[in-house]
Structure formats: C-alpha cells, structure tokens
C-alpha cells in the first residue's frame, strides 16, 4: 500500500489545522454559512436531509486494516456505530456533529486519510479495480497510476474550480470492474502491438441526468505522457466547459456538443503547447510510487489446495459461498474474497463498527492486512490462501458477513435515497430490501444467475441505475413515490445505457413486475444466457410487455 511521504503528511495535517480554525470561526460567527459552506465541502462535510454527513476518501478503494479500525472507532465515537460504502468506493458517516468534525479529521489524518476531493467541482477521488494487484487478468497493478493521479490532482490550483465535478477511474484488465466508460475520464491500461504498456483514454462518459457512454480520446497513450495529456484535456474542459448551466457543465456535454473528433483536435492542439516534461513525473518517481504496491510475500503454493477441496465437499454452505464470492487470484494457492454487504435485512453498503473491526482482524489474519471497497458497495480481501478460506468463512458467519450473493439479484447497488440524501426525490433503501426479500430464496437466486439491479433515489444517479441490467429511478409526484424502470443497462466493458420501459410503478407494483420479468427471462433464456444477454437478443418489446402485464 501507498504510505504517505512527508509532503502528504504536511498537506493533511495542515488541512486539519485549517479546518479546526474554520469551524471555530464559523461557530463564533467570524465566518458566515455562505463563507463556510465551500470550506466544509472541500473536506467532505455535507449538510444532508436530517443532519451533517461526512464523506471520507478511500483512494482507489484501498484500505489497510489499521485504517478500517480507525473508521470503526470514528463510527462508534462520533456517529451511530456504522458507516456506508458508496459507489465511489468511499465511506460515509450519516450523523456527525459539526463540533466533532475537526477531531474526526485529526483521527483520519493519524491513519493517512481525509475527506479531500469527495465534494465540489474538482477532480474527485480516483476509483479503480477492487481486484487490483490480485487478479491474473491485469496487465499491471492499476493502483500506481491511480496514486499518481491522486497526487497530481490533489490541490491542483487549476482544477480546484472546474465547471463541474470530474471523475476518473483506472483499470488494467479487459474486465471492467470500475465502470470506466461512465466516467469523465476512464483509463484502461493496455499494451500496444509492440508490447509496450500505455493508456487507452476514454472521455465524456457519465451518468446523472444525461447518461452517456464515454468515447475513445486516445487509443494508446505512451505511459510517460499520461499527466501532460490529461492536463491538456482538463485545460480544454476548463476553457470550453459550460459554467452558465450546471446541468450542462460536465465534460460529457462538452464532448457531445463539440463532437469527439473536434474535441480530440482541441486536446491535441492544447497538448502541443505544453512542455510535457514540466508536468510528467520521472521514471524514478513512477518507480518509487509503484514500489509501494509491490506484491506481499506470497507463499509458493500449489494451484490446488486439497484441504480447500475437502471443505467444499464437507460443507455445502461454504461451497455455495465459495462459488459466488471468490475470484481467481494471480498467485497459485490464493483467492480473492468478496465480502457481501448485502444481507437481506440491512441497507446495501452499510457496515457496523463491529463488522469493520472484524474485517480488519480478518485482513490481518488472512490477507496481508489489505482491504478493498468496491463500487458495488461490497468489500474485498484481495489475497487469501485457499487453505484459509474455510476458516475465514466461519469467522465471517459469526459477524453476519457471510452472505453468498455476490453478483446475484440481491446484490443490489442502492444510494441512500430520500432516507438520508438532501437531493433525493424518493426512497431507495426500502425498495432494495423489498426486492431482496422477494428473491430471498438462495436456490432461486442461483437459478436466476448474474443480475445487476441498481437503484437511484433521484436523477443524479448515484445508484448507477442507468447501467443496471434492471435500473430503477425513484421519483415523486404529488407526495407519492413512484419508480421508473430501465432495462438493458450494462456497467461492464460492454457498457450500455438502459432503455426506459414506460410509465412508473409504485413500490408494491414494481416488486411484482420485476418478479414477472425475472420469471419470463427464466422461461425464455437460452443455454448459458444471463438476463442481459437475453435482453440483448430479444430486445425491449417482450420484456416490456411482461413488466406491464398486470
């Protein structure tokens, strides 16, 4: 994991001191709310529907066990004993008090954490593949690139007041686990025909009220050109991005209105004016950062573990969990473990302080103290020996973290919705629970197979509903919540925006309608077809008919 250098420590500690004084000045009136609001937002502190909310950055979703324990302590001491994993891999606390926030920021700084870049029109916390450094699929670990971007973008004076917020994600596998095509800039680490490693730069993707899939800006960008080229791209955005209308201010609108060819030309022209060496970091600095992400001391193990196989045969529940929650590791004898935060009875992405401590302990015992958060609002232990998996599973069961539904219909992405969010138009958590309860039968879930339901409580789409196989948008009219449905969205490397089916549903109607839809899919699917595959084969018409059949 990356460790702060002296400069990082200085920045974070200075910010704590600054914010402590700013809170003091706010409380005694030397700062008005209008003056204070941008300052608190720069530290991730929002005023939400019922109370303050603090969003803590988890750069590229990587946490140490020490950091997780500190988050647990903060949840207990300053909040209500739990936290929430967001779709940007961050952690939110729903009930902090303003007077406690300086202490919280100090506690975060003590473990090299903060709330920078979790709000405002800046480059937000960079997200990445939660399997980074562990999956055999990747060309290289994407986290050094993400860390480079974090350092470049943190407090960059030219990018502190962009026309609108700016989200970047990085992956290094063909399998996209970070939804890079729905980002302002998506970066895919690739190799060219000569075997050189570089970057496929995708621009102008995004969700929100205008969902757009990103387009290629450069198919192959040499490694050393990354920062200068992104700097040129941001300059063009800063220059031409609209500031007169916040709903048209994202780069996706600029790229769409300008056209990708003309936009690319503008970026290349700007790039030609730069002195790349003034911006690019040296290979030595890249190597220094990369060294922080070197592999842990893996044991040399056979690819197959007899002990693990025996447990799979002995313990049926464990076998079911292993079938859904594990992923292939690059190192023989190891597995990537997904810990589901989607139990049937709690809100998606919520984790109690006790569970955070348990995850930290398990990371220490089984995964080199490493933890990842995912945009699907789950947790990953990236490096677990197969021979340890059964013991780990038993310990997860004890803290109610052994749900075996990763990738299934109850593994729902869901924003906080009207229950917490000041922007929301309808609730999303109760709907996700109602759907999860309807499909609670584990046999049925497995029979349905991979299914991504994503729910947003407003048009801003924090719940990624545009790219859900079944996407649900909560709205409200005359005091009544209703839910609009999209079908055929895809968050993977085959990214697609779902199509709206038609009129909205009440919560009760919608759960029944989804059940009919799922039953229909099971009836008509061909061998090996997932829901999204059947939808692509047959198109909207038959699914829509079933959805509105009642």
């Amino acid at each position, binding site marked *: 994991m990356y460790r702060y250098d002296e400069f990082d420590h200085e920045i974070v500690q200075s910010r704590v001191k600054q914010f402590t004084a700013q809170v003091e000045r706010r409380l005694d*009136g030397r700062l008005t709310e209008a003056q204070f609001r941008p300052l608190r937002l720069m530290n991730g502190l929002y005023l939400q529907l019922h109370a303050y909310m603090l969003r803590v950055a988890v750069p590229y979703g990587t946490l140490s066990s020490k950091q997780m324990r500190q988050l647990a302590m903060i949840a207990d001491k300053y909040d209500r004993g739990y936290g929430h994993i967001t779709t940007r891999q961050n952690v939110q606390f729903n009930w902090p008090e303003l007077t406690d926030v300086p202490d919280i920021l100090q506690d975060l700084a003590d473990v090299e954490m903060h709330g920078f870049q979790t709000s405002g029109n800046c480059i937000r916390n960079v997200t990445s593949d939660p399997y980074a450094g562990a999956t055999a699929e990747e060309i290289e670990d994407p986290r050094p690139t993400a860390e480079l971007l974090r350092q470049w973008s943190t407090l960059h004076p030219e990018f502190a007041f962009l026309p609108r917020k700016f989200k970047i994600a990085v992956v290094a596998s063909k399998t996209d686990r970070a939804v890079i095509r729905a980002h302002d800039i998506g970066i895919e680490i690739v190799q060219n025909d000569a075997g050189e490693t570089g970057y496929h730069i995708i621009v102008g993707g995004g969700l929100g009220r205008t969902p757009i899939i990103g387009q290629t800006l450069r198919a192959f960008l040499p490694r050393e050109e990354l920062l200068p080229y992104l700097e040129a791209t941001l300059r063009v955005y800063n220059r031409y991005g609209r500031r007169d209308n916040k709903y048209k201010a994202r780069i996706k609108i600029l790229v769409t209105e300008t056209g990708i060819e003309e936009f690319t030309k503008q970026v290349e022209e700007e790039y030609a004016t730069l002195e790349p060496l003034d911006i690019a970091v040296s290979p030595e600095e890249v190597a220094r950062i990369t060294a922080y992400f070197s592999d842990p001391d893996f044991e040399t193990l056979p690819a197959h573990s007899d002990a693990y196989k025996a447990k799979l045969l002995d313990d049926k529940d464990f076998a079911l969990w292993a079938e859904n929650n594990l992923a292939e590791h690059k190192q023989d004898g190891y597995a990537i473990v997904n810990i589901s935060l989607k139990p049937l009875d709690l809100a998606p992405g919520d984790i109690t302080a006790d569970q955070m401590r348990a995850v930290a302990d398990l990371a220490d015992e089984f995964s080199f103290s490493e933890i990842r958060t995912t945009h699907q609002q789950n947790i990953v232990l990236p490096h677990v020996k197969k021979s340890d998996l059964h013991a780990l599973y038993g310990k997860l069961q004890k803290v109610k973290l052994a749900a075996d539904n990763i990738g299934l219909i109850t593994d729902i992405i869901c924003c906080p919705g*009207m229950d917490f969010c000041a922007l929301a138009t309808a609730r999303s958590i109760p709907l996700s629970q109602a759907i999860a309860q309807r499909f609670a039968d584990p046999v049925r879930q497995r029979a349905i197979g991979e299914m991504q339901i994503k729910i947003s409580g407003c048009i801003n789409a924090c719940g990624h509903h545009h790219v859900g196989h079944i996407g649900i948008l909560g709205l409200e009219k005359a005091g009544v919540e209703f839910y609009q449905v999209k079908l055929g969205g895809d968050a993977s490397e085959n990214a697609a925006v779902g199509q709206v089916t038609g009129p909205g549903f009440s919560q009760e109607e919608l759960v029944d309608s989804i059940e009919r839809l799922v039953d229909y899919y099971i009836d008509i699917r061909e061998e090996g077809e997932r829901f999204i595959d059947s939808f692509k084969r047959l198109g909207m018409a038959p699914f829509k008919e079933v959805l509105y059949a009642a």
Partner: protein
Amino acid sequence: MSTLKHKGKGPQSLTANELREGMNVWLTAEFEWSRDYGEALQTEDEAVMEKMQAKGDADENDNLVVGVYFIDVEPDTGLPVRYREKFRVKGPSYDTADELGLQKVK
C-alpha cells in the same frame, strides 16, 4: 442571513438545522427551536410570520441555526405539504443504527 422569505400558501412553519449538531428543527410557539415537529408553530398570520422570519434571521446571525426557511403546512393534517419536508419531520424510514440498536459511544 436567510435568503428564503415566506412565499408559500396557507399555514406556514419555520424550519432550519442546528448549526452545531446539524439536526432538523422547527420554530415553536414560544419562539424556541425544537427537534419535535409536533411543537412547531403553524400560522397564516402574516404579522406572526414576519416575527418568525426575524427570529430565524437573528438566530442565523447568532450562529444557532443554519438554512432557515418557511414550509407549507397542510391545514387538515398539520403535516408539511412537500414530501421532502414530511421526511425531514419523520426522519429516515430506515437507519441501520435504529435497526440494530446502535448508538454513539462517547
């Protein structure tokens, strides 16, 4: 200073958030702030509303509350008209802390 003057129809209540703790509050008949909407002053009297606005502005200036604004109230139920405001009154319909009996450990 509040920028949201009374523009609503029918009975009105005045709401805000506590500056320190952030919680939702409503102005009572005693011109105090309460976290209990049941104690909220509801009035159609423009003169009273002017006094409420003045109290809100004063308490915002004194750094007690933030984001003061009037809300429309349903005459028959006494509840806020807007769905969002109903939610501010009721609190979350779901909160993991309530579900599991979790509390701040200070």
